[in-house]
């Protein structure tokens, strides 16, 4: 694909985006290879080391009951990464499909889609997930991803809908229609790519938001269930000792910060690479 080769060439020129990408890759590698390198499993309890600060033996220190914080953080990072990215992709995708079809086709589809959006907007997401989550207890954590996604796409979708309405009037969309291009191709080739910068920024925000929502849920016991760990549960568990036993909180907290920062750097870089105009605008 010549287009993506060009996008990649542009992306490579952006140093901070490459830095972000390297950080995300490093975090992924650390999250999935780290536990293999570490001597301790995340649920192993070292009875000789309670609340020990970082040392060559326990890189991130140990918790109140002697668990290795490094192993736990990596395990939590795994979950948070997967949940965050899955929710980001699923909810933005859902938003794009629902919003763009409503805007492009109009009529019955428009009214139905907008009704669904308004309905979901008035339901309180945190409460609903809290109520539903006991029913999925013991089942796959993927249900949690679906639940979070289901409640985080509506505002994006309204923006997509409005952007579609204005893009639909643009001549290149009319040109494609008169060429005989099928409606779904028009949406995927001309409408959605032209809001790519918005969708990418939105995915980035959703990734951060999803991780926060998941950690909030986990804090109250509705999210990731023990023995599973996420960065959310770790931060929640470490907040109390944030000032006294810094390592319980600081590693999980700063990794979360670095993760979200890196994702948004990559988002910025992708936007500049996909949308040559934004780059031109920056050069003005």
């Amino acid at each position, binding site marked *: 694909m010549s287009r993506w080769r*060009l996008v990649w060439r542009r992306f490579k020129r952006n140093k901070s985006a490459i830095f972000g990408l390297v950080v995300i890759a490093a975090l992924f590698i650390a999250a999935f290879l780290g536990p293999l390198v570490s001597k301790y499993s995340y649920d192993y309890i070292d009875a000789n080391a309670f609340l020990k600060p970082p040392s060559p033996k326990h890189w991130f220190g140990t918790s109140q009951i002697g668990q290795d914080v490094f192993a736990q953080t990596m395990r939590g990072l795994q979950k948070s990464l997967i949940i965050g990215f899955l929710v980001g992709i699923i909810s933005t995708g859902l938003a794009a499909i629902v919003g763009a079809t409503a805007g492009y086709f109009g009529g019955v589809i428009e009214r139905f889609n907008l009704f669904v959006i308004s309905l979901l907007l008035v339901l309180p997401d945190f409460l609903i997930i809290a109520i539903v989550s006991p029913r999925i207890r013991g089942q796959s954590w993927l249900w949690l991803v679906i639940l979070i996604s289901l409640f985080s796409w509506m505002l994006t979708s309204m923006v997509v809908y409005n952007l579609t309405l204005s893009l639909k009037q*643009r001549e290149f969309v009319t040109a494609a229609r*008169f060429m005989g291009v099928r409606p779904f191709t028009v949406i995927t080739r001309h409408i959605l790519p032209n809001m790519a910068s918005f969708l990418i920024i939105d995915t980035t925000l959703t990734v951060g938001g999803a991780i926060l929502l998941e950690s909030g849920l986990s804090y109250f016991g509705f999210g990731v269930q023990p023995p599973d760990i996420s960065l959310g549960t770790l931060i929640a568990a470490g907040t109390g000792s944030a000032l006294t036993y810094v390592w319980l909180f600081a590693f999980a907290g700063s990794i979360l910060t670095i993760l979200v920062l890196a994702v948004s750097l990559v988002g910025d870089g992708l936007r500049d690479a996909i949308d040559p105009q934004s780059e031109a605008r920056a050069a003005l």
Partner: protein
Amino acid sequence: MTNHELTQPIDETATLSVRDLQVTFPSEAGPVEAVRGVSFDVHPGEVVGIVGESGSGKSTVALSIMGLLQDSARVSGVANFQGQNILGLDDKSLSRIRGKSVAMVFQDPLSAFTPVYTIGAQISEAIRIHQDLTKDQANARAIELLDLVGIPQAKDRIRSFPHEFSGGMRQRAMIAMAIANDPDLIIADEPTTALDVTVQAQILDVLETARQATKAALLLITHDLGVVAGACDRVAVMYAGKVVETSDVFSTFAHPQMPYTIGLLGAVPRLDAAVGEPLVPIEGAPPSMVNLPTQCQFVSRCPVALPRCHEEEPTLTATTTSTDERAHQVACHRSDEISDGHIDGHLVFPLPELAVAEHITIAREDREVVINVDGLVREYPVRRGAVLSRRVGTVYAVDGVSFDVRTGEALALVGESGCGKTSTVTEILELRELKDGAVTIFGKDASKLTKDEKQEIRRNLQVVFQDPQASLDPRLPVGDILAEPLTTHGMPRDEQRARVLELLSLVGLEATHADRYPSEFSGGQRQRIAIARALALNPQLIVLDEPVSALDVSIQAGVLNLLADLRGQLGLAYIFVAHDLSVVRQSADRVAVMYLGRIVEIGDTEQIFNKPWHPYTQALLSAVPIPDPIRERARERILLIGDQPSPTVRYEGCRFRSRCFRYQALPENQTEDCRTQDPSLKSPTGTNLGYQTSHAAACFHVEERPVV
């Protein structure tokens, strides 16, 4: 501002004497040198035209004299107005001059008026700022002024708000405001660019009236050489921030000596040229005004450039043939070798040769009908109310339009904005059920198509839009844009690349351009890409919706030539929508003139231009200025009354009656038909073949009248 040495002394007798005007804007890429040393004089009562393409710096000159540039602009030089240098004056002292001694008429009169005050209040305000008059006196003066600029019922209209005026009326009011304080100099910045051609003629007329009433000098800034030819005493041609040629209007048009001027004059489509004659394209695009090298800025586009032109920028000097210093000045190293558009016995800009299709020789009746439109109707509802919208009326955008196009033929749909020409082609392109009328395309009824048939027709029917910036997806590289129709109509992916490269070379672009995005191209190149996309599937019929009206003259010529050449090479049929009659003369076989949703005259190009029948066609033709001062001034101009009426009303009788000069001249007993019957297209010789004949008009009182 520093008082540096001036290249020429200030002319004390002139109303305005500008010397060495330089304007620089800061930008990320470096300082933009918008105006690079411009000098000119405007003498009392004189009309000076500054003509140039977009980006030549002509508007910046006007704005800098008025002190209306953004604060970040750096201005140097002298603008001596009545003994005072007004460049760099502070806003307070400038305000005493602006609107009183120097008045300005802007391009867009809608944004030049405050929407929340009445026209009368704004004109009175302008009067009372500079003159010691009471409210009533100022009001009376405002009515007088509106009357002078030809606004009917000025007494009542003075209470109207700007949005209640049409574009032409607003521009008249703008002129009224400009002459309110009896200025000595009026600066008009593209005063007619946003207006229709018949309204443009009215406004130029009003401007002349206003000038005579105030005896003011006029600085007219425009891109239209025809306007200059008709209205100006002197002309200065600008290119890349400099005046490259200046003289009295007759010498520049008759004996241009700068290659750019020669090219520009050859690039303008002219009403009085022969049908099908190629235009002079000026290759390339104007330079970006950042970090300009020391050379003639036209060098990259000049066909007769010498090595010297790359090393040294020529200065504006009097030609050897001119009698005095001021007569005719040119900035070109080779100007002395150039005479009558020739250099060393050759044309400076050689005329391109265009392909002519073989089947043109076949008689029209024997050629296949590509599309036949019969009584097409398109109505738009007018709705009011945000929550409970209800239909309060109908816009009769297209109201019974009929025409046909045959193989290899180009039909031009011409008319002013709002006449329904674009609605007509959109309705055809939609291929949907019609409200009324029938469209038969490639022998099939367009309203009864299966999905497959529709797709087959779409393959043969392509479109090129007005603005290539909008019609090309900015996020796809050119290769993908050109491949889109191929993918859609099922060409295997591995064959696509070859076809894309073939298309690029067909429209004069390079293979390496396939990987670039549309934003990296100039306007003319983008339109070439749009044309290449339309050609991708070897269509039979291409709809061209104002394909050159967004382009500069020098670029437009290349695109028009390309379209003519492709039609000859590939035997295409065109439906060419245009508001400009002169553009159509070069490119169309047949012309249909539209007015208020209806075709009022249709026929072979030659017929329409040389022997127009319908009074509207005659007025339209007479309103298009010819870029030749001698011919232009000798022409008789037909001025229409008022504006195009609203398309939301059904008219009894002939719809052109309200503006028709022939109707007004008829004795009462002969106007019966015009008032009661709706004329249909027919030939006055009696044979009622309607739109398929070589010439037909919808008028009861057809009278031939050559107007070009």
